[in-house]
C-alpha cells in the first residue's frame, strides 16, 4: 500500500522546524481557549460547590426568614446540587475530557503537518523545485480513522443512554412533591396539590419553595407559547409546550436559593422571565405551605385599597382570594410573602411595588400589564393594600 518514499514521509524524523510566528499564534488561538474553558468551568464549579455553600445559601423567604443574600446568582451547570444536575455534571466532565483529548490530538497533527511540511524560503529559491511524492491514499490508515471514531462515538453513545435513563424519569419518584408549572408570557405559575388535606389549593407565582431532600416532580404546561423551565443547578431544561404536559424532576440537596430563567424564546420579555427556587428544611416548607394555603388577609385599615383593586381593571387579570378571580396574571393572594416582583427582576419593597403598579411598562417594557394611569392617592392605597397580603 505504501511505497518506500511515502513511508519515509509518514514516519520520517522532522527536520528542524523554524516555527513561524503566525502558526504558533494560530495554535495558541485554538488551544488557549480550551485551557481557559476547562479552568473557567472548574472555577465556576468551585465557587458554587459544596465548599462555598455559605455564600449561596439563604434563609427561607418572606414569613420564613430573612431576605436572600446577594451574590446568590450562580447558575453554572457545574454548580449542580440535585441528582439530575449531578448526573449531567458527571457526564459533562467525561465528555469534555474525551472531546478535549480528541481536540488536542487533531490540532497537534495539524500543527505538525503545518510546521514540518511548510515550504521553506530557501527551497523556494531553488529553480524548478520538484513536486513532493504524491500519496493517493492508504486503506489501512483510512480504515483506522474510520473505525476508531466509530468506537469512540459508540462509547459516548452508551454513556449517553445510561445517563438518559438515570435522569429522564417517566414516573414520579417515590414520595415526590408534585407541582404543576404553567409558563405564561412572561411569568411562572406554580400550583401545589392539596398536601395539607385541608381542601385548599396553593397557587403561587414566580417563586417556587420546595423542601430539601425530597424529590420534586414538575408537570410542565404552557398557557400561551413555548417556554422552557431551567434552573441549571437543579436539573436540565424542559420545555413547557401548549397542549402538552412535559415532566421533569429534581431534589435539592441543601437549603438555598437556586436561580434560573426561561430558556426558550417566548417573545418580547423572554429575557426577564426569571426563575427562583428556594429550598428550605421540611418543617419550614410545611409552615410555608400552611401560610400559602390560608385565606387572604383582610385588614380593615386598608379596606379602601381593596375596594379600589376590586373596582379597577386589576381584578380582570389577578386572583386574590375573596376579592377577584382573574387568571391572566399572577395570583396575588399572598403577594407580600414573596421577595421579588416582575418575575424576579426587582426586590419587593413598597417603592418598587408602587412604581410597578404606576407604570409596569417602564420597568418591563412590553409586558402584558398595562399602565393604569392611577393618581398618587390611588397608587398609595392599592400599594398599601397589596403589602398586607402576606
Amino acid at each position, binding site marked *: 500500500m505504501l511505497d518506500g518514499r511515502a513511508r519515509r514521509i*509518514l514516519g520520517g524524523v522532522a527536520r528542524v522546524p523554524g516555527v513561524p510566528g*503566525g502558526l504558533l499564534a494560530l495554535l495558541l*488561538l*485554538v488551544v488557549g*481557549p480550551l485551557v481557559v*474553558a476547562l479552568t473557567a*468551568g472548574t472555577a465556576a464549579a468551585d465557587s458554587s460547590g459544596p465548599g462555598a455553600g455559605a455564600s449561596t445559601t439563604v434563609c427561607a423567604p418572606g414569613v420564613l426568614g430573612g431576605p436572600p443574600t446577594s451574590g*446568590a*446568582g450562580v*447558575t453554572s*451547570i*457545574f454548580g449542580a446540587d440535585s441528582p439530575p*444536575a449531578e448526573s*449531567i455534571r458527571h457526564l*459533562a466532565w467525561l*465528555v469534555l475530557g474525551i*472531546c478535549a483529548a480528541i*481536540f488536542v490530538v487533531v490540532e497537534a*497533527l*495539524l500543527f505538525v*503537518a503545518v510546521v514540518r*511540511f511548510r*515550504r521553506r524560503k530557501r527551497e523556494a529559491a531553488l529553480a524548478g*523545485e520538484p*513536486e*513532493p511524492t504524491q*500519496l*493517493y*491514499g492508504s486503506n489501512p490508515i*483510512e480504515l483506522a480513522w474510520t473505525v476508531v*471514531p466509530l468506537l469512540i462515538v459508540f462509547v459516548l*453513545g452508551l*454513556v*449517553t*443512554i445510561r*445517563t*438518559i435513563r438515570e435522569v*429522564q424519569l417517566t414516573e414520579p419518584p417515590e414520595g415526590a412533591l408534585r407541582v404543576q408549572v404553567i409558563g405564561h*408570557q412572561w411569568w411562572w405559575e406554580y400550583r401545589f396539590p392539596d398536601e395539607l388535606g385541608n381542601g385548599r389549593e396553593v397557587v403561587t407565582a414566580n417563586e417556587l419553595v420546595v423542601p430539601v431532600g425530597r424529590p420534586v416532580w414538575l408537570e410542565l404546561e404552557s398557557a*400561551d*407559547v*413555548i417556554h*422552557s423551565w431551567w434552573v*441549571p443547578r437543579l436539573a*436540565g*431544561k*424542559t*420545555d413547557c*409546550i401548549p*397542549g*402538552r404536559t412535559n415532566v421533569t424532576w429534581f431534589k435539592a440537596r441543601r437549603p438555598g436559593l437556586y*436561580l434560573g*430563567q426561561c*430558556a426558550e*424564546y417566548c*417573545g*418580547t*420579555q*423572554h*429575557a426577564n422571565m426569571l426563575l427562583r427556587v428556594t429550598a428550605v428544611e421540611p418543617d419550614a416548607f410545611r409552615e410555608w405551605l400552611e401560610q400559602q394555603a390560608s385565606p387572604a388577609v383582610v385588614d380593615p385599615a386598608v379596606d379602601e385599597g381593596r375596594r379600589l383593586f376590586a373596582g379597577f381593571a386589576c381584578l380582570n387579570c389577578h386572583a386574590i382570594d375573596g376579592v377577584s378571580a382573574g387568571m391572566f396574571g399572577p395570583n396575588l393572594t399572598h403577594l407580600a410573602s414573596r421577595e421579588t416582583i416582575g418575575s424576579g427582576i426587582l426586590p419587593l419593597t413598597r417603592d418598587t411595588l408602587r412604581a410597578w403598579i404606576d407604570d409596569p411598562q417602564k420597568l418591563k417594557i412590553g409586558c402584558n400589564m398595562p399602565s393604569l394611569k392611577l393618581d398618587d392617592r390611588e397608587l398609595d392605597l392599592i400599594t398599601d393594600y397589596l403589602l398586607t397580603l402576606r
Partner: protein
Amino acid sequence: MSTLSTGHGASTPAGGGSVPDTRRPGAARDSGRVDLMARLHEWTVTVDHKRLGILYVASGLFFFVIAGIQATLMRLQLVVPVNDFLTPDTFNRLFTMHGTTMVFLVGMPVLLGIANFLVPLMIGARDMAFPRLNAFGFWLFLFGGLLLYYSYIGSAGLYGAGSTPDAGWFMYAPLTTRSFSRGNATDYWILGIMVSGFGSMTTAVNLVATIFSMRCPGMTLMRMPLLVWMMIVVAVLILAVMPVLTAAQVMLLFDRSLGAHFFNPQQEGSALLWQHLFWFFGHPEVYILILPAFGFISEIIPVFSRKVIFGYPLMVAATVAICFISLGVWAHHMFVAGLSPFLNALFAASTFLISVPTGIKIFNWIGTMWGGRIRFDVPMLFATGFLALFVFGGLTGIMLAVVPFDWQLSDTYFVVGHFHYVLIGGTLFGIFGAIFYWFPKAFGCKLDERLGKWTFWIFLIGFTLTFFPMHISGMLGMPRRIYTYQPDRGWELWNLISTIGVPLQIAGVSILVWNIIRTLRRGEPCGDDPWDAWTLEWATTSPPPEWNFHEVPVCTSRRPLWDRKHPEDPDEHYE
C-alpha cells in the same frame, strides 16, 4: 485595468452585439452615462453562469454587511448587564433578521453563487444546463431578500422598525400564530424566505442537471473534483428539504390568514409539528451551508500542499454518507421538548454517527497536507484556519449530541458559540479562502496577499475573542436570545470580551472589502493559472470567455492539468 470591471474584458466575443465597446480610448468620458447604463443592462439580462455567480456572491456580501451591522448592535446591547441601548423588541428583531439573513441571504447565495461560477468550468461545460432558469433563480433570491427587508418600511416606519420579523429565524409556532404575532412581520418572513427558497430550488435543479449531463469527455463521476461532488450532494439536499420548509411556511400562512390550525394547540393543532418540519429542513440546511465549504477546502489544500487529495474515494463516500445521515438527525434540536427516552437516544445516536464521516474528512485533509510542500498563500491560510476552528466547532457539536449535556446547554450561549465556530470558522473561512483562490479566475488578477494576511489574522483574533467566551457564558447558565441580563450571574466579563472582538472582525472584513475594490480597480494581470493548479477551470483564460473553453477540454484523470504538466507520470495510473 478597465477590462476587469466587466469581468470579461478581453475575452468578450468580437461580435458582442449591441453593447458599445467602452474600452475605446476617449469613449469613456463622452459616454460615461451610456456606458454605465449599458453595463447595468448587460449585467441585468445576463444568463452567463459566471456573471450570475458573481452577482450571487456580490449580493450575498451586501447582505453580509447588513447582518454584520445587526450583530454589532446586538453585541453593543449586551456589553454590560441591564443595558438600555436597545428596546427588547428592537433586539428581538435584530437577532431574527441576523439569523435569517445569514442563513438564507448570505450563506446559501454565496455558496450557490460560487457553485454557479465554478461547476460548469470544473466539469468542462459551456454553461449550466438551463441558463435562463439560472438567471431566474438569482432574481428570485434577490427579490425574496429585498421583500424581507422591505418589512423595515412597514406600519411603524424605520424608527419603530416597521413590520420586521421578531420571532427568531426558527419562527416557532405558536409564537408565530396570529394570536401572538400580530401585524405582518411574520408574513414578510414567510413570503420573503419562500420566494428566496424557490430561487435556491431552481439553482439546485440546475446543478443536478448540469453535473449529471454536461460533463466533458472523460470526466466520469469518480473523476469529478471533490467540490463538484459536494455541490451535487448539496443540490440533492436542497431538493430534499427546501420543499418541506416551503410546505411548513404555506401551512403557517394558512394558519395566519385563512384560519387553519395546523400549529394552534388551542384548536387541536400541534406546536411541535412546526419544530419537526422546521428542523427536518433546518438540520440538513446546516450541511447545505458547510458542505460547499468542505468542497473549497478540498480544492485549496491539495494545490497549496502540492499533493493529490488523500483518499478521494473515501472523501466521496463520506460526503454521500453525510447527505443521507443528515436527513435523520433533526430531532436533536428538540431534546428539551420532552421526547421519549427512546427517541432521545435514537437521535443522539444518529448525530454521533454523522460525526464519523465529518471526522474522516478532517483526517483526510490533514493527510493531504502531510508530506506536502505547503505554500501559505492567503487561500491556504484560510483553509488551515478552517481546519483548526472547525475541529473545535465539530467537537462542541458532539457535546451537544450528548442528550443529558444538551438538556443543560441547549438554547444557551454555548450553542451560539458552537454554531458560529462551525458557520464562521467553517463556512465563512471557506468562503473567504474561495474568494482569494478563485478571484484571479473571475477577474484575471490576484487579491493583494499582504492585505489578505491582515484580513486573516485580524478576523481570526476578533472571531476568537467574540465567540470563544460564549461557550463559557453558556456553561455559566446564560440563555440565548435575551436582550439583557442581571448583573450578579458572572456573565459580565465574558460578554465584555465578546463585544471587544467585534471591532476586530469589522476591521478584518473592511480590509477584505477594500482589497476587493482596490484589486478590481488597479489589479495586475496574473496569468491564467496563477496557483499552478490542477482542475479544469484553470485550463481556460482568466477571466474565461463567455463560452468558457476555446475547445472542449478532455479529462484524463482527477487532475487533468497535472497530467498535462507531468506527462512523465500521469495521474490516471493511480485511480
